[in-house]
Structures are given as C-alpha cells and as structure tokens.
C-alpha cells in the first residue's frame, strides 16, 4: 500500500520506506518550506514513511507583508 503525500490539495503517491525529508525532495519541494502533519499532529522530517500513511504537507512560506 503506497504512502500518500498531500500538498495544496494534490495527492502524491510513493513507496514506503523513505523519510519525510527525502519524500518531500522527491516531489520537488524544499524541505525547509513545508511541515508534515500526520493524523493532525506535526511529525519531524526524519520520520520514516510506512505503508498506508497519509501525510499532509503544510506550506510555510508567505509572500505578502503581514
């Protein structure tokens, strides 16, 4: 069962076994620019992705003045 990464509403499927950091790189994002959320809780980017996990990636970069 593949792992799902969800970023800005788009799903990316990949094989389990890699870390969040490597998976983020694989889908073309910079690890510094996202946070990973699993079941509503933040996880660190060294977490190894296991079968069936669905991880939401939250973008942290904004461009306008606050």
């Amino acid at each position: 069962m593949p792992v799902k990464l969800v970023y800005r509403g788009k799903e990316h499927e990949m094989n389990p076994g890699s870390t969040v950091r490597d998976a983020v790189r694989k889908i073309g994002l910079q690890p510094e620019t996202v946070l990973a959320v699993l079941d509503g809780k933040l996880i660190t980017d060294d977490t190894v992705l296991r079968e069936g996990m669905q991880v939401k990636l939250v973008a942290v970069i904004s461009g306008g003045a606050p």
Partner: protein
Amino acid sequence: MKCRKCGENAVINMRQHKLALCGEHFLEWLPEQVQRFIEKYEMFTRDDKILVAVSGGKDSLGLWDILVRLGYHADGLYIGLGIDGGFDYSDQSHAFAEQFAASRGLKLHVVEIEQTYGATIPELAVISNRGHGKPCSVCGLNKRYIMNRVAHDGGYNVLATGHNLDDEAAVLFQNTLNWAGGYLVRQAPVLLASHPGLARKVKPLCRVYEREMAAYAIVRGIDYVYDECPHAIGSTTIGHKEILNQMEEKRPGAKLQFYLSFLQAKEEGLFSVKASEPELHACDRCGQPTSAPGDCSFCRLWDKVRTVKGMPQRLPAEFNLIPAES
C-alpha cells in the same frame, strides 16, 4: 526524533539551533525566545500600549498570541483590503482574525478600506495606475498609513508586525542585490518614533523562522488563513525566499547568520543613519507625518481615485476608535 528536554516524540527539528522539541516544550520555548528579542532590542515594556497588525495569517496571529501569553497589553488591528482572488481572500482573513480575537476576549479594531475610503485595493491600483499592474505598492502605502493612524488615534505608542526572519532575510537580500542604501539603513527590529504622530514600529519575530511560526500556529491550535495572498504568487519576495532556503538546506542557520551579521555590521557603523533620514512634517490635509511637501502621498492617491469615482474628495477626518485601556 526525540525532544531534547523530555525525550517524548519531537514535533519540530530546528536544524539551525540543533534543537528538536515536543509540542509542550516548543510552546514554552518560542515565547521565551520572543521575550529575549523584545528585551535585547528594547522593543517595549509591559507599560506600553501595543497595537498588533493582524492579517489572519500564522505570523501575525501567532505574534498576538505570544504577546498576550507573555502578559503584554496588545490589541489587534485588521485592515480589510477587499481582495477576492477567486476565493474571498480578504473575507476569509477577516473571519480568522475575528474568530481569534473573539475566542480569547481580545480587542480587534477593523478598518475596511472600501467602506472607509471608497475603493478596494485592486480597484485603487487600477485607477491610480501605480505598481505596474500589481496592487502591492498601493497596498503597502495604505497599510502603513492606516496602521500608524489607528495607533495614533487609538492611543497606542507601539505598532507590532509579524515580520519573521524569512521576511527580513528576503528583504535584506533584495536590498543588498540593489545596494539600496536608504532601505538598508532603515531595516531594523525597531524603528523609533522619530516624529510626533509616528508610532514606534517593532518586529518581535525578526529572529524566528517562518517554519517555526507555522509550527507554533499548528501546535497551539490557531486557525489561520492558509492560502497565499493571490497577488503575492510569483512575487520577488517568494523567489528570494526560495533562494535563501536552498542555502539553508545546505547550511542550516544561513538565513539567521545573514540577518544577524547585517545587524552587527550596522551596529559597527557600516551604514550612515543620518545620510538618509528624511525630514518629516505634518500633511496639510490629514496631519500625518510625511516627507512630501503639502499633502502626503496617501491623501494625494485618494484624491485622484475619489475624483475618478465622482466622490467628494474630503477623506474621513478620523477613525471612531475605542482608545486603548490604561
């Protein structure tokens, strides 16, 4: 990865600090850091009346939350820009700011630009023909004016914004690429009130990574507007942030080092402050400080727009604010 303080599962690893923390200890650690920066840069004390500019985003709402937790007298100001972007961007942002204030019993001032002055920011940009098709320039002008005006009229002596380390590093990067001496001189954690009618401007998050602020909002359960301002997509600032994050990826702490080295160089006299300080006087129309002769750029901008729209030129003399409590 485990929390350095208690050994529980960490929720964030801050490579620039070589520090991983669990949710509980992260929520303790971050406000402590902000308090340290407030003191180090002598931003304000608990006797000051602080107005926090809130956009409904993670940084400004997070800042407001932290200041209140630290025991500061901090009220909020939300400025309705009238930006739709296909998903009611401003309405959504307003709702998050209102919800945050209401759930905590905090005072939020709201200025809707269209209702107060007669046009939305996108409309203003088109009519005034400023900003090369982008409303960011008129947006900045209006926000700066209204923030200062509300601070003045409401009895606040400090204006706090949610600029984080990534914002500061990106601006510094841009100004360095352009060797924009005037802007470099003015970039600082604190801008003192150099003229009557100007509030002291402070950036308590200037050393906090944007990633840390997003994590703070999530762990603290702060609901914020997740979508980007539609006009910021593809902006120069975001491009510069991406470049800086590539550097950060290879060398954790690179962004922080860039900013801190700049502040140190300034302190050691690299830039001359006197050379670029404009002389200010009161605007003939509204009384706000301005470097332009006669009317300030805000009044001139709205004169033009209100004339085109067939509206009376006279702008509202003041906001009907409930003053900050002593």
